[in-house]
């Protein structure tokens, strides 16, 4: 029954030199994420959540340790190869949306497909389909500046999903939204999860984390607590 996990992380370290000192943002993380998991990563500010997400998302590389994505080691890949993995396997949703303000919602959503080399026509069709799915079918020509925060985050989610990534990474996706809008966005994540999408979510808020099917708590760069049922059953005290 043990299908190989999408993500397998072993003894991951990431540190930043700060003057004379060294800050250990990640201090020996072991983590596995399986297909269709829906995990919330929690922890106090500075505990290393964003650092971990950046490494999982191939935006950053660890100082030491192993990171296998879909059974492929990515911890030692070069810049251009990482870019290709980000394009094909990862979908990012950021707290601050990170949309291109000069272009329309449709063009924003198409962006990852440009770097994938998908034809213009197919890009349009796929982007339209996804924008429809997140409820923005009527706003495709609008620019981000003409949209509400919730609408912008929907555009960002559509953009993250367009390449059909293995994992969706969301770093405090509701952090810049009011609670009602936040709940709407979480509704979309819940729906995506029920359609089979693997999701990793960073949040401070317990009620947002409650949408996920398990929580991983970080403290000072280490995993303090892992409440996911399957992992604790399958991996009894190593």
């Amino acid at each position, binding site marked *: 029954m043990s299908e190989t996990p999408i993500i397998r992380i072993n003894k991951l370290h990431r540190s930043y030199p700060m003057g004379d000192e060294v800050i250990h943002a990640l201090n020996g993380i072991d983590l596995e994420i399986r297909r269709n998991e829906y995990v919330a990563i929690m922890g106090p500010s500075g505990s290393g959540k964003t650092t971990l997400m*950046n490494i999982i*998302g191939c*935006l*950053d590389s660890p100082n030491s340790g192993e990171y296998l994505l879909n059974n492929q080691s990515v911890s030692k890949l070069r*810049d*251009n190869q990482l*870019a*290709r993995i*980000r*394009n*094909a396997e990862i979908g*990012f949703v*950021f707290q601050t949306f*990170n*949309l*291109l303000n*000069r*272009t329309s919602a449709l063009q924003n959503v198409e*962006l*990852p497909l*440009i*770097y*994938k*080399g998908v*034809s213009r026509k197919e890009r349009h069709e796929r982007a339209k389909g996804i924008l429809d799915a997140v409820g923005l079918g009527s706003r495709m020509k609008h620019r981000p500046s003409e949209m509400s925060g919730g609408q912008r985050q929907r555009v960002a989610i559509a*953009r993250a999903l367009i*390449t059909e990534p293995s994992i969706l990474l969301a770093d405090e996706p509701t952090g810049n939204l009011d609670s009602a809008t936040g709940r709407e966005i979480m509704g979309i994540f819940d729906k995506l999860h029920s359609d089979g999408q693997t999701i990793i979510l960073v949040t401070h808020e317990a009620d947002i984390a409650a949408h996920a099917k398990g929580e991983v708590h970080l403290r000072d760069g280490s995993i303090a607590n892992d409440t996911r049922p399957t992992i604790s059953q399958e991996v009894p005290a190593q």
Partner: protein
Amino acid sequence: MLLLEMFRIAGQSIRANFFRAFLTMLGIIIGVAAVITMVALGSGAQQAINDQIDSLGGSILSVRAGQMFSRGIASSDSSISVSDADALARDVYSVTAVVPELSVRKQIKLGSANRSLSIVGTTPNFADVSDYPLLYGRLFSPGENAAKKRVAVLGGGVPAVFEKDPAMLIGQSLNIEGTSFEIIGILEEKGSIGFSNRDDYIWTPLATAQYRIAGSDKIDSISVQIAPNVPIETAMIDVERILRREHQIMPGAKNDFSLSDRKQFLNIQQEAAKIFSYLLAGIAGISLIVGGIGIMNIMLVTVTERTREIGIRKALGATRTNIMTQFLIEAMSLCIAGGTIGIILGGSASALLANLAGWQTPVSVEAITMAFFFSAGVGLFFGIWPARKAAKLDPIEALHYE
């Protein structure tokens, strides 16, 4: 395919900041326009001098009176005479024609207008040797020379000096210090050669000029036409030898005349024009480089302004090469667009200037292709550093750039 997208992105970003892009392009526009104009002007000037050299036909040596020294005192008397001309015609085998000239500047009256012009007494073959075709009328004959007839042939520019219609002047008379001359012919205009504009001369038979105007039997120059197949240096030696013999100059003593090759003078001018046009093109080239620095400057600003955009693109899967290409295309588009406008502008400017100067200088295809690729090259050269800077940005830092 991906490249096409890069062009689209570059186009979008230029349009988003159109005025700034235009100002930046202005440097390239001016630089390219200047290069094209200067190159066209330079080759136009050279072409004009070339045409003059060609129009001179066979080589012509010019013998002029040098200063004559008698007991240490310089005399102003001319040292060459008609007999020198006869000797040259008789004894130098490489000579095909000899044209003695006596030139005096006088006040000329035609109708009610008074002008100071050069009157040149010469033999009828002058027009043939210097290749001055007749526009109207006829040249004077040897008989008219012998009879010291008061007849005059006007240079092509003279009617304009007196603001007269050349066709109406034949048969009319002009007045040289109280003596009236009949106008029997008008030459075609040729344009100036060297310092003197021979179009503004009035030509009369040599004997007439000597006895009726100058009051002297001297002449002040002899034009010697050399057979086309004879090297000019050989002819010069022959001419010098005969003249020294005629003037009875002792071996080792200095010539009392000077010898020069009219083409030599034009060749010097030609060299000067060439150097001048290189200089102009060089200065124009510098302005193009300054334009390129402007492009680099604005591209650096653009990269900084768009750091966050670069971070986003990288997070979504843009490789370094993608980012690099995008910004390089943007810089090169600016340069090529500027270059194209500059070519059009420079082409029109040089066409206009060539028209004003009366030169036949269409802007060459080579100059245009060169300017085009040079401006693309400037874009590549000055765009590469900002583009590299963009490509090397760390995606995480770029995403957090405010």
